[in-house]
């Protein structure tokens, strides 16, 4: 097999793996959008905050250490213990549930029946608040996140592909774990929304608030539930991205990468978020590999947005989104 083709295949597979990471972020958006019609601008910051919290708990960091030290002249930074990864993840998930309750209690509850744009603005405010709050709580230095996921080249794949093609593919173990975890997560979410009473209630709330109330659904409970799930998805995305590139404040910008994924897949479709992420991940890498050298490279920065723009022109509802029909 010609070398060029093999390299292309390797780029495509790596692209798919990167796409899974995009899908993870996009998934958080879709969940909240489907269930409450809110485009949650804060999803990226939620991922950052979840990752910060996880690292903080794991390392036994004292929350608000800077603030406490500045106020009382103390010098505390760490509790001096280390929490095992699994326990830390459970605790961080608990913090995200708490966060969901606070968001419902202090923001959403007061904005019932408001226009989507108002709710969108509220999430922008929330994003900035959380970014500052995360900084204040856990400090702004770049942190290393280690939850025991293996990193580096997967030797089995390297050897197998070397035996077959005479060229070993470089696939990162972390990417493989991410793909598996994402698959499990999506499976559980789909089962939940299709086959449980809360899942059905969630879809009902997304469609009509009044009708949902009239059949006995508590809007507040469903909102807490949805934001908890979105918080959990943010945690998973935060862990994966944090393990890959360290927990730093630029993590919140992954939300921007999720936008083209959503435009491609449709804002209301869970499969859309997955497929959209995969297409963008793979398209990005292949485009860089084939066209990149001709036009001076660095195409990965804009390829996704260009693709999204094309979709906006020709298929505004995305690949899997609901077609917008306005009755006149």
């Amino acid at each position: 097999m010609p070398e060029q083709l093999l390299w292309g295949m390797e780029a495509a597979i790596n692209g798919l793996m990167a796409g899974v990471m995009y899908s993870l972020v996009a998934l958080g958006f879709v969940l909240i959008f489907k269930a409450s019609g809110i485009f949650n601008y804060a999803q990226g910051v939620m991922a950052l905050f979840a990752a910060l919290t996880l690292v903080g708990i794991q390392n036994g960091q004292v929350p608000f250490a800077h603030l406490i030290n500045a106020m009382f002249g103390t010098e505390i930074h760490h509790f001096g213990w280390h929490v095992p990864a699994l326990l830390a993840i459970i605790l961080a998930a608990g913090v995200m549930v708490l966060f969901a309750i606070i968001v419902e209690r202090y923001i959403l509850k007061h904005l019932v029946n408001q226009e989507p744009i108002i709710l969108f603005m509220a999430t922008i405010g929330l994003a900035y608040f959380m970014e500052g709050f995360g900084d204040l709580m856990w400090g702004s230095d770049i942190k290393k996140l280690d939850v025991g996921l293996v990193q580096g080249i997967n030797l089995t794949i390297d050897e197998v592909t070397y035996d077959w093609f005479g060229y070993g593919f470089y696939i990162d173990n972390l990417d493989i774990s991410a793909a598996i975890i994402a698959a499990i997560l999506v499976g559980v979410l789909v089962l939940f929304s299709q086959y449980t009473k809360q899942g059905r209630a969630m879809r009902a709330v997304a469609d009509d608030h009044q009708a949902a109330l009239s059949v006995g659904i508590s809007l507040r409970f469903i909102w807490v539930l949805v934001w908890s799930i979105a918080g959990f998805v943010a945690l998973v995305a935060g862990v994966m991205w944090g393990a890959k590139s360290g927990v730093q404040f630029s993590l919140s910008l992954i939300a921007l990468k999720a936008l083209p994924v959503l435009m491609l897949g449709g804002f209301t479709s869970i499969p859309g978020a997955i497929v959209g992420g995969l297409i963008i991940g793979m398209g990005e890498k292949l485009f860089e590999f084939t066209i990149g050298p001709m036009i001076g490279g660095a195409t990965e920065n804009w390829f996704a947005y260009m693709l999204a723009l094309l979709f906006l022109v020709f298929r505004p509802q995305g690949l899997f989104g609901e077609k917008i029909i306005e009755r006149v």
Partner: protein
Amino acid sequence: MSLDDTGYTTPDGRTIGGVVMEMKNITLKFGGVTAIKDISFDIREGEIRAIIGPNGAGKSSMLNVINGFYHPQEGEIWYKGARRQAMKPHEIAYQGIARTFQNIALFNGMTTLDNIMTGRLTHMKSGILAQAIWKGAAEREESANRQKVEEIIDFLEIQSIRKTPVGRLPYGLQKRVELARALAAEPSLLLLDEPMAGMNVEEKEDMSRFILDVNDEFGTTIALIEHDMGVVMDISDRVVVMDYGKKIGDGTPDEVRANQEVIDAYLGVAHD
């Protein structure tokens, strides 16, 4: 017709029971506007009770008070022999009160079947964890509820649209699905907000028949708001007439028809 605590018998021979719901001196204000002014009436078991009145008379507000969407500033609501405390609308559903809406409020993204299944929520016990762990029990519960839903689907003759997303259905059928969803809750009191608004004659006849059948077959107590006077007089046992937030008449269709105040306010003066 004689009214006492044991009920009465209708002209067509149905026996109406005791009081299910009693509104006592209800007053509802929105800022400076008084939507309902000191209204009292009762709804009896097995009865079809209509609330009529010109536009803006406060009929829908009254339904929303019963339903818990609005909380009256004054007055008492007695339900099944006990005074009802202020409740949230979703808690009211668990009390056995179901309703439909004037402007259809369905879950457009879902199929007819799923829409009606949401009506069963108040009858589903297992929580999230239970559904994950004891899958068997949750499945049994689901299939029992499903059976009830299928009965209602048969009853309202909407078998052919079971799997259709309701957003695609014509208006008349959407109204029927909404009725089915309310029925699925097996309510002790069913509230219908203009069940025939915007329908053609044939659809109105169908809907009237279904309302009468529901009342007859399941013994459901029904309170409804309707504009079409012919329909109201045909199907209801007793009628409350409202005008500008006040009650101006209450009684059987014949009594209401003969009430001069009602004629002036709503029916207009008769021309022969």
